């Protein structure tokens, strides 16, 4: 076969499809609802120094978090051919404990040439409550911490590693299946990278890695230089941390200067008792997400795209969590508010582009039992869509996932086959979007009934203040959590752990999106 000249576009297609394929194998063979139905996972290709080359577009919350993971592994291991390192420690490259990451090298001609990384949200990793996303106050109650460790060494499974992990979860059998699905993703990824290298040669591939990054950097700088220079500040807050009633502030100053952006979080809250602290990697993800939205989604996501962006975070703060603080909700709740804060600041710089605040929460709901009437443990986890903020050109969409997540719902029929639960209602929360020239999207209502005794955790936000409107548009309605027991409804806090009796109903009403522009007439 002759060796055709590879244009950059061709190479981008190839390398990205390697990452995509890893994701396809992972979600099709996984057992956790989070992975198989909701696609709460990510796969990416890095160069040998740990620079992101290509990432499959699965879920934004992992966008900036993967480079930290790979960096940690490269700093601490001399990766040999056939090695695979596993980890979930939020303070050494992880995000929150249920997200288990794997990192493996690709050797070509005896030299490390690329690094593959995958991350998947497993449905249980031990800790206080089923689902491992409970309202607790330190990392040890959140579940098993896995520091970077070899799961596979030179092609050999290291006896004890997988066993140690599965022994610490409520659903060891399922965990084993998921871990193996993740390993298969790496096997496929490695095969694809090898194929590309075989066609191009190692050296050409390495120089293409550089070119892709330079290409993204160039596009990003071009986009930034089209934005008006200036300093733009904004402050937003989370309702509370589930333990105290205090609002948790996030403060940002976005500075646009020529073709560079600095995002400075000075003035944001210190760490809190509840599980809403963010490892730095999660804060990075939120920033990168917004950057990708405002500079152009078509720019390939890689290390180059992020070179023009500087991020400043106060040490040991809400946005730069340290051991032993709890971080379960940092990923799934605080990350949303970081986004709201940055786009709030950018609204003044880019008024034609920035929409009002979206629901700003993922409405995390975990329900499970150690031994149900079936005698088997079960664990259900879901996030619930809400109102999208209205924009300069459109109304907000209803009951949809926005910003840092895009996971699918569990079909009612799939859910009821799998768990002793019944869904009584799943609809759009009419008139909950903020009014304005363009109306914010409606929130969603999901009512779930327990058919046997079980444990539930809710981690949600925007229960006291609704998502803000923009340019004179009204705020969306805040969300509501209710417990209906014996026909009587009781209001629940935004974050809580609770025991459900047989017949109890949980009714989650998610926030409406903010409105945009003054209501006319």
């Amino acid at each position: 076969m002759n060796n055709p000249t590879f244009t950059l576009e061709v190479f981008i297609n190839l390398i990205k499809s390697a990452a995509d394929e890893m994701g396809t194998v992972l979600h099709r063979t996984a057992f956790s609802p989070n992975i198989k139905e909701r696609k709460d996972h990510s796969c990416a290709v890095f160069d040998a120094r740990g620079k992101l080359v290509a990432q499959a577009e699965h879920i934004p919350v992992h966008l900036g978090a993967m480079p930290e993971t790979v960096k940690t592994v490269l700093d601490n291991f001399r990766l040999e051919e056939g090695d695979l390192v596993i980890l979930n420690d939020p303070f050494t490259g992880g995000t929150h404990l249920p997200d288990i990451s794997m990192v493996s090298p690709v050797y070509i001609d005896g030299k490390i040439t690329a690094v593959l990384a995958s991350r998947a949200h497993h449905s249980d990793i031990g800790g206080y409550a089923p689902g491992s996303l409970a309202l607790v106050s330190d990392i040890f109650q959140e579940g098993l911490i896995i520091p970077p460790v070899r799961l596979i060494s030179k092609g050999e499974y290291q006896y004890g590693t997988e066993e140690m992990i599965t022994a610490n979860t409520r659903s060891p059998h399922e965990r084993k299946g998921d871990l193996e699905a993740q390993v298969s993703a790496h096997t496929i990824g490695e095969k694809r990278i090898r194929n590309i290298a075989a066609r191009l040669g190692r050296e050409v591939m390495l120089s293409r890695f550089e070119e892709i990054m330079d290409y993204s950097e160039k596009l990003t700088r071009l986009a930034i230089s089209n934005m008006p220079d200036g300093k733009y500040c904004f402050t937003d807050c989370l309702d509370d941390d589930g333990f105290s009633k205090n609002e948790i502030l996030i403060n940002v100053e976005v500075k646009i200067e020529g073709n560079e952006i600095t995002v400075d979080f000075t003035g944001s809250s210190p760490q809190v008792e509840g599980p809403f602290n963010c490892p730095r990697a999660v804060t990075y993800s939120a920033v990168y997400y917004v950057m990708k939205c405002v500079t152009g989604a078509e720019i390939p996501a890689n290390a180059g795209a992020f070179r023009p962006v500087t991020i400043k975070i106060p040490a040991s703060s809400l946005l730069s969590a340290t051991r032993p603080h709890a971080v379960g909700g940092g990923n799934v709740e605080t990350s949303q508010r970081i986004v709201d804060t940055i786009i709030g600041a950018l609204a003044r710089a880019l008024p034609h582009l920035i929409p009002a605040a979206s629901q700003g929460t993922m409405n995390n709901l975990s329900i499970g039992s150690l031994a149900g009437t079936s005698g088997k443990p079960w664990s259900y986890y879901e996030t619930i869509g809400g109102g999208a903020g209205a924009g300069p050109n459109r109304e907000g969409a209803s009951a949809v996932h926005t910003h840092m997540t895009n996971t699918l719902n569990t079909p009612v029929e799939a859910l009821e086959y799998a768990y002793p639960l019944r869904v009584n209602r799943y609809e759009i929360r009419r008139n909950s979007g903020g009014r304005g020239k363009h109306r914010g999207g409606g929130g969603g209502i999901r009512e779930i009934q327990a058919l046997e005794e079980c444990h539930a955790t809710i981690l949600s936000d925007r229960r006291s203040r609704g998502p803000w409107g923009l340019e004179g548009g009204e705020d969306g309605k805040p969300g509501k959590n209710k417990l209906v027991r014996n026909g009587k409804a009781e209001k629940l806090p935004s974050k809580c752990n609770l025991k459900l009796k047989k017949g109890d109903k949980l009714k989650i009403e998610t926030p409406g999106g903010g409105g945009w522009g003054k209501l006319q007439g």
Partner: protein
Amino acid sequence: MTFNSPGKTYKAAVDVGGTFTDLLLVGDNGLTALKVPSTPAAPEKSVIMALAEAGGLGVPLIHGSTVATNAILEKKGVKTAFIATEGFKDIIEIGRQNRPELYSLAVEKPDPLIPSDMRFEAGERIGPGGEIISRLTRKDARLLASAVKKHHAGSAAVCLLFSFELPGHEEILLEELEKLGIDVSISSRVLPEYREYERASTTVLNAYISPVMRSYLERLEKGICTREDKADLRLMHSAGGTVSSPTAMKRPVDLVLSGPAGGVIASEWLGNSLGIDQLITFDMGGTSTDISLIDHEVTITRETKINGLPLALPMIDIHTIGAGGGSIAYVDKAGALKVGPESAGADPGPACYGRGTRPTVTDANLVMGRLVPGSFLGGRMTLETKRSIGAFKNLLVGETVEASATATLEIALSHMETAIKKVSLERGHDPRDFTMAAFGGAGPVHACELAERLEIPRVIIPLHPGLFSSMGMLLASPGRDYSHSVIRPLNKKCVNLLKKLFSALEKQAAEDMKSEGFSKSNLKFMLRVEARYLGQSHGVTFTVVELDEADIRGRFEKAYEAAYGHLQPGFEAEIVNAQLSCRARAGDIPVRTHECKTRSKPRPVEKKRMYFGEMVNGSVYNRANLSPAYPVSGPAVITQDDTTTTVPPGWRLAVDIMGNLDLEFMK
């Protein structure tokens, strides 16, 4: 296409495309073809016109139609009501709660086709075991039907939770709505499978286009019948079979891939006639390319989307990308060259057609000596190379026309390469095991180079690449597919349930086919099962022969391992769906041995410079002058009326006795 008299005609196939309507007739004189301009405002007109001109009125007709697809894409269906279980009327708007664009601040969801004021709820609930949690009363059903009527619905879609476990409530609603003269589609008949959103979406699509399809087919039937012969009209459906016109009126959602399915069925036939089991079909036209994979059988998917709306019925897995001969090359903001998806279409068309000014893939081929200006469309149209050169001149600053043109070809090929990988590698198939069947106007131009990149060793180009889809319609078997969700762990009880379900599906299929005039003895049934490990969401589908627990488990494990490369020992298997495919014997079409006009060694029409990675000296041949006795080696270009075939260096071309071009990579 030139039109010769077909003699006495027995059967006809017509494929209505955006630009042309292709008619193929089977008669005493073998196959004859007629191409007439399409009439998009009233698609039946071009069909009737073509048949009248060919003397084919009253002849049994198989039709590939885009009416269903266009009604959905252009949102030209009727005012439709949606009826759901109480508490769930919004599921068609919520969908799976995800947004299609991950990094867009302007969140846009697909339009559910039915606004909220046309959504209704029935006071009822069925549970996962088919148990009634809350019963629907006849009185409530009647009240609901009259409310729907009051809202002037022309059609209604009913989707109740777990209706496939117990269809009784949907059937009551069907009766009451039909009494009021409303067209009704119920989910337990359209798609009796679990996952309420996908089932509801499919049912809504069916209801939305039903009246449109009915009136189109009625107009067409009226136009094609004669005083002696009633219309005998069958429609090509997306799963590769045909259904009668009355069935198509009831299930129009089956017709969404009516056209492209023809090409895949023709490829399957081509493969059978040549003894090739594994084919990748490559159908490249002016604006788009359709790719599909045949691995001993046509690949079927249940995860199609149209305008963002799921259509979960079994359909041939055809991957369509917006890259064709007319795809436009341009430079993006950062100075990178891109190709497509914007297309020059038929108007203005590629620059070399004489009206457009922007460079396309076709222009790149012309500039690089891979098309012959004088023999395009049999010489009826002359391509203007100068215009192509002009179009590329201004594209890339500081680059030569040749560099821009070759980069354009390179990028177009990479799009197609990615697309082929999606249907092959990403699904566990190694392209090196496959042969490529290339057709459509632009397919043969790129086939060999594309094959070479994917290490596909052999390419077949059929006799009339431009009419291959219509050919598939003549070959397609009557009949359709049936399915039913099971969702039970694989054990003896489950196998008994499977037996019951399969026999019910078989009975239904036999009744349907009887009403279309086929007796049961002519029918062939194929049983398939979708299964997974208990706890997974995605199943693998495999054929079953006997309904026996051990046999099913064995076949499941084989299919799972083939798909993912490993098994999950210690995990229990779960049966997801029972699927039955029913087909009557396909009609014969006269395929004659290709008559070669010449037995002598073909002489090149001309010799010229052409691009295959670099500029080389190659020969130009007319396809009609090629002889089975004399293979041709690349570099070469083969011209014919409806396409051009390129033969890169290292490839050898032979003509087989049926007239196909059989190309092999020799290195």
